[in-house]
């Protein structure tokens, strides 16, 4: 990055950000909920849906939709930040903490790795350090704003990791696979950052 930024002649803020301390660098606040995805929205019947946590040795823990619904729920209210520059404050979700799922998976013999790959209907994957989905930082969300999560926003269920850029919050998620190494996922292979911390502006491969 250049040491002294290039000043755009005649450019001024149109309106000061309302909550600048909550806006990571290069982001702006939107009240809408834009949709971004690479292809058509997959549709999976709830009767065919399941969620799995698995490791390379073949251990796994799996929940059907009905089983998943019996797990303890949380209702996080969080700010989300999309790499395409919008941020949205105070979004309200309902889902199951990944900590809850990991605890049951460990009991079933699943061995944790240093990284996870989240995998989804439609073939989408994304990679994360395991530490980023533990400790109350991540959920499998199936409710948004008091209603079932709409398909275009990742329903029936999506990963929710609000402290990272939102492409890490994989839509249509079907499971987490334990990994010993960080294996780039769909967008990461196409040039997006492996971690994606919005506060460090880790948008693309090579960003610090």
């Amino acid at each position, binding site marked *: 990055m250049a040491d002294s930024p290039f000043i755009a002649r005649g450019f001024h803020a149109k309106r000061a950000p309302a909550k600048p301390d909550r806006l990571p660098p*290069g982001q702006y606040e939107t009240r809408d909920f834009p949709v971004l995805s690479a292809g058509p929205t997959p549709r999976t019947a709830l009767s065919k849906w399941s969620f799995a946590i698995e490791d390379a040795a073949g251990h796994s823990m799996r929940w059907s939709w009905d089983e998943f619904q019996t797990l303890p729920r949380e209702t996080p209210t969080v700010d989300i930040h999309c790499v395409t520059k919008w941020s949205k404050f105070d979004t309200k979700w309902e889902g199951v903490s990944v900590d809850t799922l990991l605890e049951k998976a460990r009991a079933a013999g699943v061995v944790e790795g240093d990284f996870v790959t989240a995998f989804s209907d439609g073939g989408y994957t994304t990679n994360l350090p395991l530490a980023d989905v533990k400790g109350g930082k991540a959920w499998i969300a199936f409710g948004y704003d008091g209603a079932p999560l709409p398909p275009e926003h990742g329903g029936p269920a999506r990963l929710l990791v609000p402290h990272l850029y939102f492409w890490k919050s994989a839509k249509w998620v079907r499971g987490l696979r334990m990994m010993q190494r960080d294996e780039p996922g769909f967008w990461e292979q196409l040039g997006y950052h492996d971690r994606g911390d919005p506060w460090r502006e880790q948008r693309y491969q090579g960003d610090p």
Partner: protein
Amino acid sequence: MTIPHTAPARLEWRVARVTAVREEARHARTLVLDVPEWPGHRAGQHVDVRLVAEDGYQAQRSYSIASPPESTPVELTIERLEDGEVSPYLCDVLRPGDGLELRGPIGGYFVWETSLGGPLLLVAGGSGVVPLMAMLRHRHAAAAPVRETVPVRLLYSSRTVDELIYRDELTRLEGAGDVDVHFTLTRGVPAGWTDFQRRIDRAMLAEVGWPAASGARAYVCGPTPLVEAVANQLVELGYDPSRVRTERFGPTG
């Protein structure tokens, strides 16, 4: 496509020089940019633009590249959003001779190159036509035998006729027998209009698109409701989801 993943080079910010501006339609303008050490791009990719004010305030937005890989300079076509912060600056304030900070190219999925073949179905809503124009220009730059292997159809939805971007160029391309172009207007048509005048629907896609059995690839770009509807309808018409690539615009002012 193979993207090297080891020790990736950082996408550095560069200061491009505006060499010309061109009005394309009501509310849309093309910026012609001389970008130092531009690494080249593929049709469909975009750049990030960063504006920094004297007080340090900064705004960033993404804009699709309109020019084909074959040509320098790099061209961006910007739709002016009334309520926006960046697009009014790019459309109203920026003038030839000014600098503009950008980095890119970005994005490796919503891209098309001649080696991917066809047939090709391009579906655009509003300024979603911009990355598709890069694909059309890329194809047009190819040798005739290559072009013949990639028949193209474009279906382009706009609110009104004066918001159609690249209308003259598209009409020329069609007149040269190079591409099938269909426009549809959703908020009224001028006298003598003979093309479609409704939102894109399944019947329209079935009429002007390629049959799924042709193995066509589809690229759909525009506002979310249009892209969501068109992608679903193409799947209903038998398109394999992996052959339908989408780019959806949220409001990006």
